[in-house]
């Protein structure tokens, strides 16, 4: 069985992170922004797991469990905010709200 080199794992994580960031910046729909955020978190998670397996340590996978927990919490709060947002503005367009501009 060949060992996947760490660089592959890191590149995959980096690509996921970049894709998530691009989605976050480009999509206007708040739901997709939230999904992009999840993708970025998973990118970071992949990097942790790859690094953990490189040094044979469990830390990377433990960190990933933490990330999962944080992501779950974030999604629950985010979705609740999203629902409120939709009730208030009847849309999910992030650009439609700029009441607090200076």
């Amino acid at each position, binding site marked *: 069985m060949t060992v996947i080199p760490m660089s592959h794992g890191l590149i995959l994580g980096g690509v996921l992170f970049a894709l998530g960031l691009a989605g976050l910046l480009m999509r206007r729909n708040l739901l997709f922004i939230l999904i992009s955020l999840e993708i970025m978190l998973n990118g970071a998670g992949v990097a942790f797991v790859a690094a953990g397996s490189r040094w044979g340590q469990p830390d990377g996978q433990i960190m990933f469990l933490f990330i999962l927990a944080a992501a779950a919490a974030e999604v629950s709060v985010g979705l609740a905010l999203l629902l409120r947002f939709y009730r208030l503005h009847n849309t999910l367009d992030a650009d439609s*709200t700029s*009441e607090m501009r*200076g």
Partner: protein
Amino acid sequence: MLELLWLVPAIPFASALLLAVLRLSRKAVAWIAVGSIAASSMVSLLVTVSYLLAPPAANSYTQVLGRWFDVGGLHPDIALYLDPLSLIMVVVVAFVSFLIHIYSTEFMIEDEGYARFFAYMNLFVASMLTLLLADNLLLLYLGWEGVGLCSYLLIGFWYRDVENGLAGRKAFIVTRVGDTALLIGLFLLFHELGTLNIQELMQQASQHWPIGSAAATTAALLLLGGAVGKSAQLPLQTWLPDAMAGPTPVSALIHAATMVTAGVYLIARTHILFSLAPQAQFAVAVVGAATLLMAGFSALTQWDLKRVLAYSTISQIGYMFLALGVGAWPAAIFHFMTHAFFKALLFLGAGIVIQSLGEEHNIFRMGGLRKQLPIAFWTFLIAGLSLAGLPLITAGAFSKDWILWGALSAAHGSVTFWAVALVGVLLTSLYTFRMIFLVFFGEAHSQVTKRAGKAMYIPCLILGLLSIVGGYVEGPFARFLDTVLPWNAGNIHAVPITEIASEVIATLVFLLGTYVAYILFLRKPAYTAMLGSSSAGGVLHRFWFSDWGMDWLNDRLFVRPLVWLAQVDKNDFVDAFYAGVAGITEITWSVLRRTETGKLRLYAAGIAAGSIVFIAVVLFL
């Protein structure tokens, strides 16, 4: 028992703190406030008794409570100094404060700021007692500023009326002129003699400075400046009539009986310094003589009952300054004591009259109150007679005769000073009986709507008693004070008349003033109207009514040039600097506000770009 001395100022101070911090019912406030002053005066009486039973060595007792600070050779102690002079002052102040606090519990009962009022009053008493007991000039100065602060707070007590706040501010600023002179005097004394302890200072001064030396004169004149400001003497007297904006018990306690005599105490306390500077002492006498005449004339023309009393206070303190100036030291302190009794009583009586007529201050709208307010009338009459100097019976006559005799026979006395004081007697009896006739005799112009209760009458009765019996202690008083303030008149220079003759003449002048007041204000008011409507009389009336135009003069001489200078000098470089700082901030704001778009994705992009730049810097630099 003497070691209990520190409790005398400490109890009112603790009670002031308590009243300021806790929220209590009116009843509790009254009990704490009056109780603390009662305890303080009980302790002062205990100290007096033990002092009299076993006089300490050198007739003085010093209680060191601790070192205040120690910087560059200046190391004042927090120490109390008790000698016959401070003992008399402390007992009088504590006892009069006690009576006025009792009076206030009823006078202020409907006021929303009940606890605030008593917290200020207790703080005032604590500061005043600190001032009197201070062992060094710095601690005295602390008390001096403390009473000034309380005076300001209490003049502006009803701060919702802007006028009252302005009156408080005026009092604070005008007395500040004198305070600055006093502070410079303190600096000078420390610089020249290296200590601020009063007793050491007096010793050093008489060792190092010959009589009439420039340093002694300058220092004495600077102290006189402080005294003139606090005691409302010429030319800084303008704040006291306006200070009547405060509640009447405040006028009685602070602006008649106690605080305004702090200047008298300061000069008596440092009288050795003034003896070394005959010119400065002469200035004290001249200030006193001029003030007693000017304020006497002004008192004749006022229509506000409290303002009549205010000018009368200025005039009576003028008498004390005259006594100090001619070297009749104990006479000034004796007059302080009798004045504290009868002037506090006059104010308390005025408070009853004003409150029972529904806040009516105008004496021309009063009248005929003799039958309706009998207790107020009799006590007011006793105090008035004491003020005018009814001989042999009232306390005021004893002290005033002593001052008159001193003005003639003491070390720096002269016939001129004696004559001025005699004119003052005439003026005093004129304005006193003008006030009494207009308020209590004649036809009633207003209806009594409210009657004062026991808590207001009993202090009046006690003070009325003291206004009579206070005079009989003249002999023991002089002997008791003799170690501090010696009295050796009559054998210094030739005097044209004897003491008895001086008293008889003063009595005749008093009777003349009373009779003229009776004719002018009760029997034939038409004469007064005639005097007032003649052109010269009208001008004089306006002139005296406005306190000899002092406010006008101050406004032209000091206020307007200062305002003008401030307006002209609005754009100097200091202001330009601050305006520049404000301008730069405004420009930065207008640039940075453009980044606040409210667009969520732009912020996210900003965060991403920022992180990239940050990581790049960490990695590659």
